[in-house]
Each structure stands twice: as C-alpha cells, then as structure tokens.
C-alpha cells in the first residue's frame, strides 16, 4: 500500500514533529538540541526567515491601497471575516477558502495559514502566564475535568521560554498574572498612563499595565535577533526578527544542531499504531505537490499541527485498537473546543493632553488583568471565570471624521492629530463544553483525500452573561477615570475569531475522561505527545501561545528522559 522509494533507514528518525508553528518550532529546537534526529513535517510551503515579500512596502507600493479587489476576495470568504487579517500585504499568509473548505453546523471563523512557521508569523504576540487560579478552575467549579498540572509544574518552563523568546513587559506582583522574565517594557502613552493612575486611585482590585509582548527591546542573545523598530508591521513578517516566530528563532536554532530535517508540502494523513508494542511507529504522509503517499518512522511523535488539524489527524488515525481515532478511549477527542470571546467593550475620549503626542508605532497596547471571580469578594452572581482587557489610548489620525467639509480647511484639519481616544476590548474565558465539537466529514474529501472539518461550537449562558459585564465594566472604568463620550460596542464575534482554538484533545488525570496525561502524552499511547492548543483543559482568559511553548519545552524534556529510560 504505502511504498517509499528509499530504504526504511532513510525514513526513520528519532522524533517526528507534525507542524512548524509556535509549538512545532519549540519541539524541534528542544529535541534537536537534546541530540535527537528530528523530522519536521509542514503541510505548506517553506518560508525562510527574511522571506517576507511585503515587509518594507508602503501603502502606495501595493495595488488598491492594500485592499483586495472583489475578484480577489472570492478566494477568502471566511478568512475575510476578521476584517483585518487579509490585505495585499498579507494575503500570501492565509489559506484560500476555495482550496481548504470547511463546514459550519454553527458559524465558526477558522482563520489560518499553511506554511513553515504557521501562525507564529502572524500572531498577536501578547504573552501572559496562566496562574493557579486558572489551573485549579475546573476543580474549583466542579466542571469538565481538572488540569493534571499546577503553576509550580510549568513555572520553570515559563521562565525558560520567556528568557529565550524575549518578552517585553513589566512585573507588577499581580497573582492572576504571574510575574516573569522580561525585556524592558514599552512606554504607555500620556492618556494610558493617566488611566493607569486613575485606576490605581479608584480600584483596589484592578490595574492597568502595558502589554506583555514577545518583542526584543534590549538587544543581545536571542540568536542575533534584532531590536523592535516600532514599525508595527509585524503581520508581514519582521526582517529584524524582533518579534518571536519559529522562522526567526526556533527553526534556525534547530537547524544549527545539524539534527533537523524539515519537509514542507507534507500533510499528515494519520499516525501509524502498532498493536504489538502498543505504541505509534510513525506517520502516513501525503506529499501535497506530487500526491505521493509516504511513511516516516520514529520513536517519538509530537503532534503540533494546531488544535483543529491535530484533532483531525488523531481522529483520522483509526485502527482495531482505536476505531474512533488514536487515543480516543474517552470519547473526548474533538470535543470541548474553546476560543476566547471578544469584540466587546467600550471606548471614550478626553480633551486632556491636547499638546502631547508619541513617536513610533508601538506593536502593543495596554492590559487590564482579570479581576472577576478571583476570591469570595470578587465573585459575580451571573457567571464563573473572568476576562481581561486589551486596548490603548491613542490620538485619532486622518481617517477620523473631520469637521471641515472641503478644501484647504479639510486638508489642514486632517494633517493634525485628532482627539485622544481610549479603547478597552475584553477577552473572555470560554468554558469547555462536551457539546462544542468538531467532526470529520468523510463525504467531503479535499483534493488530498482527507476529510473536511465541520464545526459545531456556540457560546452558552456563562459566556453570554460574562459579555454583559465585559461591556459594562469597560464603560464604568472609563467613566470613573474621567473620560468623556463613553460608548459601548458589541460585535458578536463568532467562535474562532479570537484565533485561539483550544481543547480538542484535553489533558487530564483520568484516561476515561481526557486524551492526554500530565506530560501531554496520549494516555494509552505514551510516545505520542500533543502540545498545541488541543491540549488545553480550560481556556483561561489569557492569550495562550506562551503556555503552548512552555508545555512543549516541558513535554520535550519528558520525552527525552523517557527515551533514555527506555520507557518509550
């Protein structure tokens, strides 16, 4: 059935990593640096660091001022839904929906790109640790299953990852948002600092700080990556390597060991399971260009394809032992799908600081950490868990409404900065519901013969109740801080739009109710690790990538120790 043109030795590695994004890149770096021969399989094309064709172009250098034409949009009806991701500067980073269709029993925005580096090239770079409030949340509330780890288990790995990737931020001694190892923080604007001071006066339980963001602000180390130049064109790829990506950081580090083989255009069909050894022995791969079927073998497999493709691969890995997908003894594979719900909050204006401005384009904003349901005093009667705010205080630019209608007066008005505005957008935790799931449609195969994904995910009562408070508190804080023209907004974001898909192969203590153990390995197949968003037992409200990286480094360390002990 499956033939390789070379002998088995040439397709055998110590470890295979599926995916080259933020988790796969970390797995590659850690495993190669520990001496393993590693094959990284990436379904998309190769992107070398620096291969960012639009990085230095201006608006007038691209067609249509950066917008796609209606004809061009026809390939991106779903990727378009965010309103900000797909432009003439970035369209090469996103999948064409016409080539990669999916189905929506309920609406789901699945926003993604297939290339080496994956969404590590495109991420928002906000980096916050989870705390024990998060790791114990399911146990405290008696829902879903308990995380099998606590903060002390992951803390050294957060330290390790933050130091390596470079996170600009500030330690504030806030228990919900644990301190870390930070590069120098970026400055607040005058208005943001004003809001910070007001909040410190008014609230005992709330604070405002500048965002923690994976950018180098103090040069030195980091594999020669450069300092942030404050262009805020990160999504095009950074020629300085100033923000963390697999391409600028972990993949070059892995390659430098001489132990890395990177194979682009390689989509994984399934994981091969051996009944005799009760372990995985390798993966079946389809070369997306030649459509050849290939097999590769290894002692360890890291599945880091991101939450939805990872679950798809596991679900499609059927055997006599695992008729419903490898590792799916619990029936939880593909379930408990989570994202963060957002696009709700408030904005306001102020007449203060009319003679002040800023220089540069900060690729970052402000952060107000969670303050709800931390303790008895902060319990909310209508929902459990909480939310944090991101946003910022900036002056309006030429795109604002002008008072002058026409002529010289209009030109002069818009050549000056407008009023200072302050915006707070909440990012809320979504609970893990068994009902929120993805399934595979074997009646809808793609051009590689793989089943399409169908999403059936919806916000429920807890999220909807939380949203009311997310909006109200944003407005109240702006009013309390003395801002004027406070207005609220609610854009009813679909699940998926947060681009934080999580939970489809959750970690847990009990093989009957979870897919992965406390080391991110499949309970019943201990040489298969899953360290991307699929592993998340709860979503917390923080941007999750930092946690994926820390869990990946921790799992790689465990895998190599187990290998040395001949346990896997």
């Amino acid at each position: 059935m499956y033939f390789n043109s070379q002998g088995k030795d040439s397709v055998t590695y110590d470890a295979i990593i599926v995916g080259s994004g933020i988790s796969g890149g970390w797995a590659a770096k850690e495993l190669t640096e520990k001496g393993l021969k590693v094959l990284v399989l990436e379904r998309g094309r190769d992107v070398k660091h620096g291969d960012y064709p639009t990085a230095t172009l201006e608006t007038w250098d691209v067609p249509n001022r950066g917008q796609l034409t209606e004809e061009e949009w026809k390939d991106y009806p779903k990727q378009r839904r965010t309103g900000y991701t797909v432009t003439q500067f970035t369209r090469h980073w996103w999948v064409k929906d016409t080539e990669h269709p999916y189905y929506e029993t309920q609406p789901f925005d699945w926003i993604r790109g297939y290339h080496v580096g994956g969404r590590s090239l495109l991420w928002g770079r906000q980096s916050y640790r989870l705390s024990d409030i998060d790791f114990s949340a399911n146990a405290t509330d008696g829902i879903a299953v308990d995380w099998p780890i606590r903060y002390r288990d992951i803390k050294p790995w957060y330290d390790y990852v933050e130091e390596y990737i470079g996170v600009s931020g500030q330690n504030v001694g806030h228990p919900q948002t644990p301190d870390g190892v930070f590069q120098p923080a970026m400055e607040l604007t005058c208005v943001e600092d004003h809001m910070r001071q007001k909040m410190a006066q008014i609230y005992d339980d709330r604070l405002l700080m500048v965002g923690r963001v994976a950018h180098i602000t103090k040069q030195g180390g980091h594999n020669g990556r450069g300092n942030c130049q404050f262009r805020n064109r990160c999504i095009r790829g950074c020629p300085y390597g100033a923000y963390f990506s697999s391409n600028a950081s972990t993949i070059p580090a892995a390659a430098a060991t001489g132990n890395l083989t990177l194979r682009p255009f390689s989509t994984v069909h399934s994981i091969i399971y051996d009944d005799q050894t009760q372990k995985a022995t390798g993966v079946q791969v389809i070369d997306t260009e030649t459509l050849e079927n290939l097999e590769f073998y290894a002692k360890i497999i890291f599945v880091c394809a991101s939450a939805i493709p990872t679950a798809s691969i596991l679900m499609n890995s059927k055997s006599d032992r695992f008729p419903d997908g490898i590792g799916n003894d619990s029936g939880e594979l593909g379930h408990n799908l989570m994202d963060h719900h957002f696009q709700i909050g408030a904005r306001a204006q102020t007449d203060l600081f009319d003679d002040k401005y800023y220089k540069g384009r900060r690729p970052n904003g402000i952060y107000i950490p969670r303050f709800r349901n931390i303790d008895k005093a902060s319990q909310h009667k209508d929902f459990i868990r909480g939310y944090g705010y991101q946003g910022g205080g900036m002056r309006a630019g030429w795109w604002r409404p002008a008072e002058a209608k026409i002529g010289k007066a209009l030109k002069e008005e818009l050549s000056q900065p407008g009023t200072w505005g302050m915006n707070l957008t909440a990012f809320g935790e979504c609970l893990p519901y068994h009902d929120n799931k993805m399934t595979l449609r074997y009646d809808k195969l793609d051009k590689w013969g793989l089943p399409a994904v169908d999403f059936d995910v919806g916000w429920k009562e807890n999220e909807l109740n939380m949203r009311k408070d997310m909006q109200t508190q944003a407005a109240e804080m702006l009013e309390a801080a003395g801002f004027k023209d406070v207005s609220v907004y609610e854009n009813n974001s679909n699940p998926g739009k947060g681009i934080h898909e999580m939970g489809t192969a959750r970690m847990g203590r009990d093989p009957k109710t979870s897919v992965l153990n406390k080391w991110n390995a499949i309970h019943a197949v201990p040489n298969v690790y899953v360290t991307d968003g699929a592993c998340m037992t709860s979503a917390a409200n923080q941007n999750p990538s930092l946690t994926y990286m820390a869990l990946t480094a921790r799992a790689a360390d465990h895998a190599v120790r187990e290998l040395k002990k001949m346990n896997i």
Partner: protein
Amino acid sequence: MKRRQAIQTSVFLAGCGLSAGTIAAIVSSCSTAPADSGTTFLGDDNVALLGDIVETIIPATDTPGAREAGIHEWMDQSVRDNFSQEESEMFKTALSQIRKDGFSKMSQERKEDYLTSIESEEGQPNVFEVLRGMTCQGFFSSEIGATQVLAFDPIPGEWRGCIDLAEVGKAWA
C-alpha cells in the same frame, strides 16, 4: 453583515467621516472586475472631471493636492475593483450630472459650494460624501499625502509614548 463589519474596521475606507452606513452602502455587494486593459474604467472624460473634483476637496496649498497625487486615477481603479456594476453605474450617472452642471468651469469657491450642496437621493448614499471619503482615503494613503502632508516615519526605531506635539507638528501617516 460580516462583510459590513469587515469594512467598518478597515481604516482604508473610514476617511473623513464617512458614516458606517455610507461605507457599507458604497461597497455593499460583490462585483466582477474586468481585466486591466491599461485604459480608464470610467472613461477619460470622467477621470479628468474626477481630477477637478478631488482637487476641490483637497487642493494644492504649500503642499500638493489630490490631483497631483493622482487620486482621480486611483479612484477610477477603486470603482473598477470594489464597486458592483450597479454602484459604478450610479457613480457614472452622478458624474454626468456634475459635468452637465459645468463643474469644471466654476471658481474654486463655487466648486466647493456646488459639491457640498449635493443632496442625497432616496435610499442612496450621498454622492459628495462618497467622493469626499474616497478622496481623503486615497490622498492620505498616497505617497504625496503621507510624506508631504502628514508626518512620515517608515522605520521609527524607537517608541516614545508621551512627547510634545510640537516635536512632530503634524499627524503621523
């Protein structure tokens, strides 16, 4: 609805106080763009008229205006690429009326009065608001608008969060 939200969040279409509803109305349906023929989409006479219109909305002062920045030509392409057939027909009809009224021969002051007093037709976006929004969008995102009228800094190299406006003097591009 999704499309409308997408457009509302695009800074490129939010120029000069176009209301969200107007923006949505301008580009509310899909169109099939013809292949680029190397000639104008709206016709040379219409593009020349647009040159007079955009220069009225953003005139040359001590810095160049919208005509020198080529905004009329950009607008021609934008109508081609982002308007539905129905919308571009409406746009052409509006331009015909403006030409018939002898716009190009008017004084600058008269041109301003003429454009700002264009009335909305029932159920349709106000033609002046559309022209004004597109002119602002095109101009301030053009090389001339960004580098000569606004403060332009392609590689800032640093971030300072709170400085005197006088240090910059203009809005950032």
